[in-house]
């Protein structure tokens, strides 16, 4: 094919401007590198083709981690969202999860503006068709219109566009999400380079018209005051939008059962593997026949539209069945579907092809992030996007890549899971995937990752100063609470106050820290007993309370991390030839050779590698290191 070389050469090209692409573009541009972002459609930058919301347990943690690293997602949400609440408040601070309802158009428009105004960043509407690879290294890409864009690094954030195919019952057509133009050729180019691809499936529920809904038959789900995603934002102000809860009925299930053979899921038309944790409604009904009803959340798609999203009703049933099914739901009896639900199949890269910095093992300078790596969800995509963007830039600076540890960040858990274990289905983050959940709280994401973002060069002075003052505030308050001179004596006054606060009696003098350990007492309550108590902000007080009240648990989790760290620090030499390791089972040898783990810890997480294999590997390394030492000594 004839092509024309674009005169400007870029440091980084990002293909795709979804949630991964936006973060992957902003990071290198903000670090000073000439960056080009290509998208199939400029009107879909940072578009949300599925749910109109961000967050929930695990996902909200990632949004806040992106924020702490200097990313944009949290701030963009805070500027444009129409409702926010905190989920899981009764289950412990580590699993609290913010959930925000977005205004899809506003979210897209603001993010597009941020990209447009970003120095060093060019945003263009182009379909990438071919990767240019020379001697195992990426050189750029060629677009559908015949332009060769040269670059030192390329990041693929193609979402569900690669050979995208939409299925609605018996109707099937090639399309990207929301019926956009699909990218039919790019995955072929990957395949030519020897990259192993897979086919995944995901789905979305119907969108319905507000006028046709009867909210009086549903439970309202209001937002809450005083919350925001970014550590830098003010809480959401003003009136918030309302969501609603309703349920499927026996009749809904009957309609599904009568028509399930018309769904591609059961008739076998869909080749792709779908996620278990976010199943379609037909999947839920068939797999859990005893469950009498399933929850459905009715959520607005934005402030300036009548479209509502039916969360929980993801489906690829035929359009006519979708109408019948929806009308069997209380409050939806007269419902008008504006866009039917659909399933979408797409090509993605086997994440075992990746290194922990998200560079492909086989092609130097080529990175992938988001759904192309087998994940699902906007937050998971953005988390990988910022990591790929940062690592492309760090590589251009000849610096070590940023690899977040499992004990450091949910993003670290996410990427390690994908790269080390691979994923048989679209991967969604969950708090239970993190071993050290209590340390990876959303409230301390800034404390965990701001220093890393600063080191990388994405955290500006203002953000860094506010981080430092938070840390200092926590230290100062803790010092004061632990000071023996500030002990509380069991005077009559003190006892009276404790009784008033419904707290137990005091028999001997105790430190303020000991008093704060009582579940019913807050930091501000201590002011009654210590008038000089340092004045601190609400978020600093939250840190102090968590660190004091849950100290025993935090200490134990830290001990677990210590164990983990020891295993991570047992490095596996890169030159190791696994085929020589005859003591390992063949399957384990093959797996290890493919993943090439950096440490025993990482090796132990590879599926198909048993604890016995790990023991054998450790014994081998022990002997290997001993013999190496002997050799070195022998040379002298």
């Amino acid at each position, binding site marked *: 094919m004839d092509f024309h070389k674009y005169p400007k050469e870029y440091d980084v090209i990002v293909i795709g401007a979804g949630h991964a692409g936006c973060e992957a573009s902003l990071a290198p541009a903000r670090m000073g590198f000439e960056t080009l972002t290509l998208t199939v459609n400029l009107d879909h930058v940072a578009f949300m083709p599925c749910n109109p919301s961000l967050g*929930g*347990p*695990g996902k909200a943690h990632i949004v806040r981690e992106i924020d702490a690293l200097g990313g944009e997602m949290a701030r963009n949400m805070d500027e444009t969202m129409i409702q926010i609440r905190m*989920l*899981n408040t*009764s*289950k*412990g*601070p*580590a*699993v609290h*999860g913010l959930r925000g309802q977005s205004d899809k158009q506003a979210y897209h428009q603001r993010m597009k503006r941020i990209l447009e105004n970003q120095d060093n960043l060019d945003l263009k509407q182009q379909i990438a068709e071919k990767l240019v690879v020379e001697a195992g290294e990426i050189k750029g890409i060629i677009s559908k219109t015949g332009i060769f864009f040269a670059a030192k690094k390329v990041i693929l954030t193609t979402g569900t566009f690669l050979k995208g195919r939409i299925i609605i019952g018996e109707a099937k057509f090639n399309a990207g999400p929301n019926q956009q133009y699909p990218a039919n050729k790019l995955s072929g180019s990957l395949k030519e380079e020897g990259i192993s691809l897979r086919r995944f499936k995901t789905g979305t529920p119907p969108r319905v018209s507000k006028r046709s809904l009867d909210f009086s038959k549903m439970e309202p789900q209001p937002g809450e005051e005083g919350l925001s995603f970014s550590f830098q934002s003010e809480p959401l102000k003003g009136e918030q939008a309302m969501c609603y809860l309703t349920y499927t009925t026996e009749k809904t299930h009957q309609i599904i059962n009568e028509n399930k053979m018309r769904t591609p899921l059961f008739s076998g038309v869909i080749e792709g593997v779908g996620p278990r944790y976010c199943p379609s409604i037909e999947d839920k009904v068939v797999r859990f026949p005893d*469950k009498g009803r399933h*929850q459905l*959340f009715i959520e607005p798609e934005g402030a300036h539209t009548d479209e509502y999203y039916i969360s929980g009703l993801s489906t690829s049933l035929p359009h006519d069945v979708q109408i019948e099914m929806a009308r069997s739901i209380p409050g939806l009896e007269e419902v008008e579907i504006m866009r039917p639900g659909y399933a979408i199949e797409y090509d993605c890269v086997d994440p075992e092809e990746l290194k922990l910095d998200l560079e492909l093992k086989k092609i130097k300078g080529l990175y992938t992030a988001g759904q192309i790596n087998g994940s699902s969800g906007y937050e998971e995509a953005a988390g990988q996007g910022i990591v790929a963007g940062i690592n492309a830039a760090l590589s251009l600076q000849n610096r070590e890549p940023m690899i977040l540890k499992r004990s450091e960040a949910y993003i670290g858990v996410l990427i390690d899971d994908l790269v080390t274990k691979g994923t048989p289905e679209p991967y969604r983050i*969950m*708090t*239970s995937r993190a*071993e050290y*959940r*209590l340390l990876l709280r959303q409230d301390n994401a800034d404390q965990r990752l701001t220093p890393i973002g600063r080191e990388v060069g994405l955290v500006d002075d203002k953000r860094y100063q506010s981080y430092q003052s938070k840390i200092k505030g926590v230290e100062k308050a803790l010092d004061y609470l632990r000071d023996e001179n500030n002990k509380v004596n069991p005077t009559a006054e003190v006892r009276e106050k404790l009784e008033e606060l419904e707290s137990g009696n005091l028999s001997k003098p105790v430190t303020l820290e000991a008093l704060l350990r009582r*579940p019913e007492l807050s930091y501000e309550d201590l002011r009654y007993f210590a008038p000089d108590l340092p004045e601190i902000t609400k978020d600093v007080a939250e840190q102090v309370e968590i660190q004091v009240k*849950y100290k025993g*648990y935090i200490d*134990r*989790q830290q001990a*677990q991390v210590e*164990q983990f760290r*020891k*295993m991570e620090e*047992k490095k596996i030499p890169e030159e190791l*030839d696994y085929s*020589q*390791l*005859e*003591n*390992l*089972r*063949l399957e*384990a040898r093959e797996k290890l050779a493919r993943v090439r783990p950096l440490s025993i810890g990482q090796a*132990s997480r590879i599926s198909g590698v*048993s*604890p*016995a*294999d*790990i*023991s*054998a590997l*450790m*014994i*081998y390394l*022990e*002997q*290997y290191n*001993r*013999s190496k030492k002997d050799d070195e000594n022998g040379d002298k």
Partner: protein
Amino acid sequence: MDILREDTIAAIATPFGTGGTGKIRISGPDAYEIGDQIFRSVQQGKKLKDSESYTAHYGFIYDPEAEKKIDEVVAIMMRKPRSFTGENVLEFDCHGGMTPLRAVLELVLANGARLAEPGEFSQRAFLNGRIDLAQAEAIIDIINSKTEKSLDIAVEQLSGKLSQRVDEIKEVAVEVLAHLEAAIDYPEDEIEGFSPENLDDKFNYIKEEIEKLLISSRQGKIYKEGLKTVIVGKPNVGKSSLLNYFLEEKRAIVTDIPGTTRDVIEEYVNLKGIPLKIIDTAGIRETADKVEKIGVERTRKSAEKADLVLFMLDISQGLTEEDLEIYKLIKEKPLIVIVNKTDLPAQVDKNKIEHEFKEHSLLWISLLEEEGLEELRQKILNEILDEELSGDDNVIITKSRHKNALLKAKKAIERVIVSRETSMPYDFLTIDLKDCLNALGEITGETVADDIIDRIFNDFCLGK
């Protein structure tokens, strides 16, 4: 890079002694090449190295140098990885008797194999992932077992019974954990079959099951290491005679002079399958004699560490100050009071003795007449065996590593229960519940702790 590529090892794999057949096992990369040097199939020219796995070949062992037929054998092939060790394994079923077996083994060794260390086959099986750590340890125990009963326990552990029991407990913990995690990760969903009440039931169940295994560890220690039984009593009450009775031979010097047994004598006695480690002590007595004084102190020390104390009295001497002094030293220990020499005239009222020691088992015997001795054996057994736990189906913990892991698991589940009692949110339950699971996993080898290297190098004497 061939550091861990093993050499080929061989050993006689059947018990020492004469039997109908005997087995030579050869394991390692060169097993078939070595076999072909000395084995001639009755099918002319048939080579073992070209034969399929799981085939048996009839033929003869020849000494290639002497061109001499040694034995008629069946050669059995098990190719890697589907063999006991996970390596190429060749077994020769020979005629029984140690002489031909040794002759065949010597030929195998002369042709390139190395004599296997004790436990080395199982070590390789473990390293090749054919057995888990608990099973590997059981094999070591079988090799070292002192009595049949301890062999039984090791065999049960090998068959995976311990792992099975631990897995059953883990299963419950995993189920609860899954429910907790689901409730945490899906805050807007209703989690079925999940209520706070059955949560507490499950936690208590886990704790009780772990405790049961821990109780069995006392028995396990007894089966494996023997019941430390100390015989005490003032000089010349018949302690050495009692030991000799158990040993059924004269070992300790028996005289009428008090204080003859100067040193502590330790012997293993097999009491219905339980190894009894009997310690005969010098008589406890305040004495000026230097040698004997050391003996007295040793006795005190022995009694301190004993699982069971046999306290002997001499009815013909009556109940003396010395007896009561000794009794003071030992009365807190599990104790059987034995009144010896019932064949002689009693110098003390039987009722008085019974009253004095009413808190303990009391037994009247005559070692001279061999009276009351069967009853004594039974009493010792009763002292050891908690009836509830002595059934054959029970798993008995014999390894201190397992015991430590169970203790860790118990502490963790107790912390979970405390968290429940103090109404901590779900997330906090999961931290200690995971600790509990990891500790249990250490028993089966599923949890790879970083000190496993040390353990493996200690237990299996690797890295030669």
